[in-house]
């Protein structure tokens, strides 16, 4: 590549946490500016170039008619479109509301719902083709770097899809399920975080979304065996990735 690849960062229905995780690359932030032309990033820039981009990192889910149009526009102007974080992949935490009738959700928050344009929230893949996904709530900055590096090398990034358990064992942790009887989502959750929670005495809540081919029904029976009731289990799966095909059954469709 002779010219610097042009990067755009967009935000849809989400919390900006993934963009913040990108900014948390303080140590190599200046290098990134050397290597890439960050040409569109509303949170950081006032002059934004809207002509087109090599890589677009899209944060947030899609939940209004305008957003559907916008994401289609972005797709047309983007060579490599990345669903940046769980919201863009499948709606993440805000998708919990998808199980409530939309009007009920709206009237619980707004007196006048006639001016509210929202729909249920979905990942961007519902509307456009996605070239890569960065899992996590937020996506881990190491995976962001891996993706950028792979873009420069024009190769596939190494983003492992195995469960958190692998990273947890690497850290010499006792299993929270077997040793502490905690309802840990690690065995069905994709790695990428480095097993943050179990290493800090807290069960994994699944913020990296489903691993490859998870055995969710087995884990649900294990939780039941530990004494959790059906509602507890449903809440566990209906959290970061309740809308995903992998978790949908246990999330209560």
């Amino acid at each position: 590549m002779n010219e610097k690849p042009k990067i755009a960062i967009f935000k849809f229905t989400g919390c900006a946490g993934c963009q913040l995780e990108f900014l948390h690359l303080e140590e190599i932030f200046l290098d990134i500016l050397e290597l890439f032309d960050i040409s569109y990033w509303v949170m950081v820039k006032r002059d934004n170039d809207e002509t087109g981009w090599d890589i677009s990192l899209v944060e947030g889910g899609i939940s209004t008619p305008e957003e559907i149009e916008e994401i289609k526009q972005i797709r047309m102007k983007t060579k490599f479109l990345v669903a940046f974080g769980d919201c863009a992949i499948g709606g993440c935490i805000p998708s919990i509301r998808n199980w409530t009738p939309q009007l009920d959700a709206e009237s619980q928050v707004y007196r006048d719902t006639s001016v509210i344009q929202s729909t249920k929230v979905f990942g961007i893949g519902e509307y456009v083709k996605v070239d890569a996904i960065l899992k996590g709530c937020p996506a881990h900055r190491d995976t962001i770097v891996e993706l950028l590096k792979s873009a420069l090398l024009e190769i596939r990034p190494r983003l492992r899809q195995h469960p958190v358990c692998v990273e947890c064992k690497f850290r010499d942790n006792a299993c929270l399920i077997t040793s502490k009887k905690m309802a840990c989502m690690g065995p069905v959750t994709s790695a990428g975080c480095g097993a943050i929670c179990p290493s800090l005495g807290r069960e994994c809540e699944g913020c990296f979304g489903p691993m490859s081919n998870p055995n969710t029904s087995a884990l649900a029976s294990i939780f039941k065996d530990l004494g959790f009731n059906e509602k507890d289990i449903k809440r566990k799966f209906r959290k970061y990735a309740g809308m995903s095909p992998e978790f949908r059954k246990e999330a209560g469709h």
Partner: protein
Amino acid sequence: MNSYNIEKKDMNILLDRFLEDYKVFGPTRPGADSTFDEITSIKQLHLDYTSTVLPPKKFFHPPKETLFSFELKNDKFTTKESIQDKKILILGIHPCDVHAILKLDKFFSTDFSDTYYQNRRKNTVLVAINCVEPSEHSFCSSMGTGPYLDEGYDILLTDIGTKYLVEIGSKTGQKLVEGVNLRKATETDFHEKERRLKLMEKKIKKFMNTTWLPRIARENLDHEVWLDLGEHGGVDGSFPCLSCGSCSLVCPTCYCYDVYDTMDLSLISGTRNRELDSCQLLEYGEVALGDNFRRDRKDRIRHWMLCKFGAAAGGKNSSCVGCGRCIRVCPSKIDLTEVAKVIRGGKQR
């Protein structure tokens, strides 16, 4: 070789001696979820532990390691090896784990020698301890790997009440105790060791019949137990496998690994690394163009169990030593000794 005894309360003397020449690692918590960590004072040491999460394998074949770093210059490259030659001493290894290390020693030296493993191994002293309190999951007596140890150690300790019996197994071991004021072991010490280990053997509750096991396993590739484990109800109170990989990651004889490169963003320098892998994971069996040779869960758990039964390509080098870690760690309560019974036809679900 020589034998000595030492009062338990004097163990710090021995530890201080070790610390003179080595970085010392030992179990730092009681119970079955202990971990081998660095020990700098006797207070941290828990020789009465029953098991650890990761086996001492982590010292020779670490979960993650850098093989070498490289630098690209003018389209050529230079590599720099990262060879570990730190001298370490592992204190308090149980017999099953010593046997596992002996297996890995063999595996990593036959055909092609693995420089990284060998280097670490060469620089390590093993101070083992005979088990006097088995974990509820271990079955070393079935596997011939415990509770006694008679090979593979530099020094072997046995808890004989208020004292440890100290047996020397190598020149390095001998040199280490020279200069420490130890008493010669007495006949009574050995009697006590014998008595305690007999007692210990009685406490072991788990067994696995290994006669012809590799062959039986290979002849039962189509046994319904694999589908039960993979998708259906599991076996004898267990749940179906989650394919979480934990069992193989904590197994002291599982050695499979993945190799990958890192590269800094400037695309000039990077490292080649390896990381433990597990045949229980979906990605393990992937080949080019999206095919996968062990896509089904049942094929993956079958392969792993076959390997542990000595019926896969690792042969005896990767087969089970009966430490019980995989049973303890399995969220689905899958127990390979139960599976062994089932494929023998002894028990149906």
